[in-house]
């Protein structure tokens, strides 16, 4: 189950500066575990001590905020796009 993951600037020191990497897994949680294997240090940046997505991290699965899906347990399939984006506020 290969997916593409877009990596924001603050995390690129774990990916040797690369802005898009691939990872395997059938859920967001599994993908993050795989990212940790390939790029050690990533998990701690994305998840808090309880294993939940950190307050200031947004993860999008094919454009949808995973908090609207099944959060960390959201199912992932081959070819999906995952974006990791620091939470930012608008103001419209």
């Amino acid at each position, binding site marked *: 189950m290969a997916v593409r993951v*877009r990596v*924001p*600037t*603050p995390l690129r*020191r774990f990916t040797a500066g690369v*802005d898009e990497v691939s990872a395997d897994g059938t859920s967001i949680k599994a993908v993050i575990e795989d990212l940790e294997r390939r790029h050690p240090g990533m998990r701690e*940046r994305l998840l808090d001590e309880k294993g939940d997505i*950190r*307050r*200031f*991290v*947004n993860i*999008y699965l094919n*454009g949808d*905020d995973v*908090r*609207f899906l099944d959060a960390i347990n959201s199912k992932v399939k081959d070819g999906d796009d995952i*974006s990791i*984006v*620091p*939470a*930012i*506020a*608008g*103001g*419209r």
Partner: protein
Amino acid sequence: MSYITNLKCRECGQEYPISPLHVCETCFGPLEVTYDYARIRAAISRSIIEKRPHNLWRYRELLPVDFDGEPEVGPNSGFTPLLRCKRLGAELGLKHLYVKDDTVNHPTLSYKDRVVSVAITKAREFGFTTVSCASTGNLATAVAAHAARAGLQCYIFMPEGVEAGKIVGSTIYGARVITIRGNYDDVNRLCSEIADKYGWAFVNINLRPFYTEGAKTFGFEVAEQLGWRLPDHIVVPTAGGTILPKVAKAFKELKEVGLIKSGEFKIHSAQAAGAAPVIHALHKGTDLITPVKPDTIAKSIAIGNPADGFYVLKAVRDSGGWGDVATDPEIIDAIKLLARTEGIFAEPAGGTTLAVALKLVKQGRIKPDETVVVSITGNGYKTLEAVASAIDQPSIIDARLKDFDALFDRLTNGKRAANTAA
């Protein structure tokens, strides 16, 4: 002269030099500007501030900018009226009610002129030549207008399907408007990625630590205009969560640098019922803000996933304040009430704030003798469609006096004789 020392993560405390950086590289927490308050305390006083021009730069020592002469950005922004509202106060049962009226902020009629003045000043200091934002309304027009005057390139990103007026309102200033197939949250996400890749100054992304500081001027002005004291209560609208924590911060800073004596106040949050993730968390007693899909006529505050929502909760709770929601009909009624009693036409965000103030009075959280400030952050002339169907339609008659006489009789239930000299 600048009084800022560095950028500090609000979560883990990691410090960074002053730069266009908005996210902590360790924990993704938001960064905040820190100041040397001891030096500021020595440098300013009430009388120094009072002698300065009526714009937001009169508090420049407490803003993250570095200039001493005349301001080149936002020379007329800020210092909007704080109006004593006797007629509205009578309706609400309040003796000391004020409206802080940013419907007349210069040049684009919303509180965004404050934050954007600071952000664009900072963009120039950092040497950016292109400024940008994701917005569908007040922020877009403010960025486009201030960028024009500053001579900067400007790109505005909006979700597709926004009203033509909003595109005109930005494009007229020479900005390039790009509409995105998706909703506002999609636009925000894309912009975050563009900021990363293109090195543009997105006022509410990579300039966010500086941009948000501009919102403090709303609070500084309230205190100065009340005679250098804080109100007992201030009601503030909440969308992304920028302004409320910064008003609270402003009040604390005024105490810190010795410009006011008492630092007591209660700050209350107002959200539209259709976009109220912060109020839901406040009422549930949790820190966890669950995003919602916004559905309200109050478009300028329709944000379902507020990044600074946590800090709104903290500021409200620290002050002993509260918050509530207003439904669309309550919002419209409040817009009409403010217009009818005080001659101020607010956008739906303002209607939300007033409607919530009314609820807090009814709940007994605000007492009749207390000093109350209702924050009106945007102008109703920009959102006519929100109230157009809720107002009386005009009367149509021929150009004949007797037709008007007949109409006037109908409108006044036959009391014409008492109302006219004839």
